[in-house]
């Protein structure tokens, strides 16, 4: 039956929006847990060495203090249980500046904060390895990233008449979700409830359980709303288990929120990268070689390497290619996934180099890209489930007014400003991960209501809304009669909202559950139907009061035979103030092919967010390590500059209409990550077009242009 009122694909306002505009959405520390004590963490003031003596006497005597926890009285935990970044007070060793070395638990926050200042620490410091510029030459092949070679890059580069060989540098960045990482832990006998933001609800449950020596069913994660995450709440960090331990020790619920300053060295970061990009081409612009060699840093004990070469593997047809990584351990917190991991930073290097090559070839950068469009995924030979790069470039250029670009740099002067246009492409993989969903129907008279439950996450992405839309269409139940319940490990297990797999995995599982439920009701009725009825109609016609069903969904085998990605093309217009060197992105257009758009309103917001992040990456965001002590000199939002409202100009969003049902049944490709990919490249290329200055080190601050 054709339903004329399809909700999927329409710009429904967020179903959880009313809670968010009235202040009633409960984030981690908003849950009304009775009698909670307050914990405050204190941190190391050296980057390497060990704690010689820790004097907690004064803190323990301070009013209201219930416990002071350090490595001396901390229970042994399983440090390989899945909590990232160490810092779980398991010994006196210090491996980065700002490592957690203890916490105070007190009746009130004020008392805990005061007492934390009374703790005296003596250290045995060691030489700290914190100067990446000096250490980069020591970098080695990472454990899980071998060099990927195709053809002979060296020979192709040596033979080429037109080539680019440059190093592009990107700084340490922090996620800085507006909600700092925070937890309330409440024990009930041997079981613990952890109110804690988690992009991967079941992952947080398993990591906490394994680290604390519990069974997963003893740990419940409650995370209905996340105040942002951007990768930092994908894995979980020490604060989660420290809160659980503290609550057990003081035999009361405990609330622990990291401070904004502590967010700099508690929950991972985006690593600093040196990316050497080599491109070679024939005089008519056919690429002959591409090498993308990344050098970066990791923590002393653990390794994490952002995959900067991912875009370079598959954006262009090139017979000779090399993707490599080198990593050096440093006394810094473990890096982790950060929005568009690898692709956002990697595309800055790749797309800057492509732009440089276009200038050397005297070609339009759009035409150079289209000339090297691959028919299949060059990294594995698989056919594309769909690829929209050319459409993104063509349609984006038309909508942006690319034809008005003056190819020669420095020619477009408007008063005190130099104006420039830039373009850059991006991509991000589209994957469906295993997810389960439970759908329940209830009938009262002719009124049918539905509840959808799964341990999914909504970190502002719109999960609640797209699942309500999906279920409404699939069940024939009106939107306002559907309740979506997510963010609780008591619900059926689900994929994380990470790596742009959330919408695809969740929506397909809810769809599957609704179809199965309808099939079951049809079978139950024992009738034959010429036109497939909706589940809501069946509940009424068969006078069924309650029915529920659960499915476990996963990607089809066919999907594995194809290469599935979202693609985009980004267009920036920048105005550079010739007196001050400040850059303003006056206008930005993102053209995106991301499969079926379930809700254009929330999808557009995701793209706006990615572009805003990309503009921050391009122009302002940078964390600086003091090479003497290993601390960040950028230690608050006054020094680490995330974009503010006035930093953002006119943003336009264009979607390429596509139905890619090879990738997954609903044809959803995910949109959260791809939005940032290519943005910094487009801005940097526009700055070159405006000024003739090629800035290869982000962020593009005024000092680099004057």
């Amino acid at each position, binding site marked *: 039956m054709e339903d004329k009122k399809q909700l999927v694909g329409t710009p429904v*306002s967020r179903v959880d929006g009313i809670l968010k*505009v009235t202040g009633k959405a409960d*984030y981690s520390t908003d849950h009304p847990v009775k009698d909670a004590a307050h914990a405050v963490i204190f941190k190391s003031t050296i980057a390497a060495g060990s704690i010689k003596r820790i004097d907690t006497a004064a803190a323990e005597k301070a009013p209201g203090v219930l416990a002071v926890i350090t490595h001396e009285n901390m229970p042994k935990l399983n440090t390989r249980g899945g909590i990232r970044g160490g810092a779980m007070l398991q010994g006196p060793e210090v491996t980065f500046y700002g490592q957690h070395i203890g916490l105070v638990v007190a009746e009130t926050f004020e008392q805990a904060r005061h007492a934390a200042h009374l703790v005296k620490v003596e250290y045995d410091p060691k030489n700290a390895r914190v100067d990446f510029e000096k250490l980069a030459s020591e970098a080695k092949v990472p454990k899980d990233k071998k060099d990927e070679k195709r053809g002979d890059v060296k020979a192709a580069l040596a033979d080429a008449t037109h080539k680019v060989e440059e190093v592009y540098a990107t700084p340490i960045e922090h996620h800085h979700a507006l909600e700092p990482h925070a937890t309330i832990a409440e024990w009930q006998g041997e079981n613990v409830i952890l109110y804690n933001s988690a992009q991967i609800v079941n992952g947080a449950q398993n990591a906490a359980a394994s680290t604390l020596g519990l069974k997963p069913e003893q740990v419940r994660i409650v995370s209905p709303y996340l105040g942002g995450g*951007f990768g930092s709440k994908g894995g979980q960090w020490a604060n989660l288990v420290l809160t659980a331990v503290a609550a057990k020790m003081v035999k009361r619920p405990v609330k622990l929120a990291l401070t904004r300053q502590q967010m700099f060295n508690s929950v991972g970061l985006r690593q600093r990268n040196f990316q050497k990009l080599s491109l070679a081409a024939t005089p008519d612009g056919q690429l002959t070689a591409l090498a993308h060699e990344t050098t970066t840093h990791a923590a002393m004990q653990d390794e994490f390497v952002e995959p900067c070469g991912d875009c370079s593997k598959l954006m262009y047809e090139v017979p000779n290619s090399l993707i490599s990584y080198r990593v050096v351990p440093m006394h810094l917190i473990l890096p982790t996934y950060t929005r568009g991991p690898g692709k956002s930073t990697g595309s800055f290097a790749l797309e800057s180099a492509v732009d440089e090559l276009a200038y050397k070839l005297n070609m339009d950068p759009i035409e150079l890209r289209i000339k090297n469009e691959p028919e299949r995924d060059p990294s594995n030979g698989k056919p594309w489930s769909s690829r929209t790069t050319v459409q993104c470039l063509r349609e984006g250029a038309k909508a942006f007014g690319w034809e008005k670009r003056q190819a020669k740099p420095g020619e477009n002067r408007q008063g005190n400003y130099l104006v420039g246009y830039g373009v850059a492409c991006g991509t991000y993989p589209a994957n469906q991960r295993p997810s389960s969903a439970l759908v329940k129907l209830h009938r009262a008279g002719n009124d049918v209501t539905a509840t959808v439950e799964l341990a999914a996450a909504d970190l502002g992405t719109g999960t609640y809304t797209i699942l309500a839309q999906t279920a409404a269409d699939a069940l024939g139940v009106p939107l306002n009669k559907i309740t979506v319940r997510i963010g609780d490990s008591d619900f059926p297990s689900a994929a994380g909202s990470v790596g742009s797999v959330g919408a695809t995995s969740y929506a397909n599982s809810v769809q599957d559950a609704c179809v199965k439920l309808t099939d079951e009701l049809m079978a139950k009725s024992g009738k034959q139907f010429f036109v497939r009825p909706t589940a809501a109609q069946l509940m009424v016609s068969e006078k069924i009061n309650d029915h529920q069903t659960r499915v476990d969904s996963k990607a089809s085998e066919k999907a594995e035979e194809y290469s599935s990605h979202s693609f985009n093309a980004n267009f920036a217009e920048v105005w550079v103030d010739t007196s001050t060197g400040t850059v303003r992105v006056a206008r930005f257009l993102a053209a995106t092919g991301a499969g079926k758009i379930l809700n*254009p309103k929330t999808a557009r917001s995701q793209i706006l*967010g990615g572009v805003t992040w990309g503009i921050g990456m391009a122009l302002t965001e940078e964390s600086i390590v003091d090479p003497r002590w290993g601390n960040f000199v950028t230690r608050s939002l006054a020094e680490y500059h*995330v974009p503010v409202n006035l930093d953002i100009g006119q943003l336009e969003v264009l979607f390429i209409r596509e139905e890619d049902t090879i990738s997954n049944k609903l044809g959803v490709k995910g949109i959260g990550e791809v939005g940032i990919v290519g943005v910094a490249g487009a801005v940097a290329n526009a700055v070159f077009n405006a000024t003739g200055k090629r800035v290869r080190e982000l962020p593009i601050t005024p000092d680099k242009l004057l």
Partner: protein
Amino acid sequence: MMEENEAPQLTEDEKKLFEDLMPEDLDEILDTGVNRRHFLKLLTLTGGGLLAYQAAAAEQVLTRPLSLPPEALPPSTLENAVDLSLRINGTSQKLTVDSRMTLLDTLRERLGLTGSKKGCDHGQCGACTVLVDGRRVLSCLTLAASCEGQSVKTIEGIAQGNTLHPMQQAFLKHDGFQCGFCTPGQICSAVAVLDEAQKGEASYVTGPVRLKAGAKPSPVRLSEEEIRERMSGNLCRCGAYPNIVAAIREVQSGKPVEQTWNFVG
């Protein structure tokens, strides 16, 4: 330490709403607050569903009070205690606070008003913005003890009964948020911005502001640039800025602002 909460927890508007719709339940509501049964009845009376919101979400909004009586704390938890009386969302509150306690922590930890958020605790992000005597302040930089006799409005008190404030409606319509953590501060700030512009208060991007002697400033027209500048103290890491600007423009102008996205291919 005993503390009193003299006034009923419902605002006058809410009282009127329940008086009109559910007179027989009013006594119970005034006594114990709105519970699930009242909520379901209200849903039926208002036509089976509050707009197209999730039933669960609407219930959560309506069955929570605008402010809670402060929780009494054991004496050991208070140092340099300060007695304080102030109005919160229209209700008089008397409580005793630690002299170090900020207005933000008082709202969140003592009065159960967790709508105001702690994003940085240093006045750098704006998530804690509330209105004190009608002006926006950063509640994390405001000591509770300095609010004696003042009137505080938080995000929980911005709506009129169960009718959302136009700014709340505009944020919903324009998707002026994603994760929603900065939203209470954004909305409080936006409401104050309209008032500041009406009073002719200049911003960094306002044109010539010199006045003739004795002249009153005329209202500032809020261009996009003005809105962006005036809202730049409220960070949104999800990047909803263009939508926030659209929402504020719509409320100030009273004319619908178009939302734009395009499909091609």
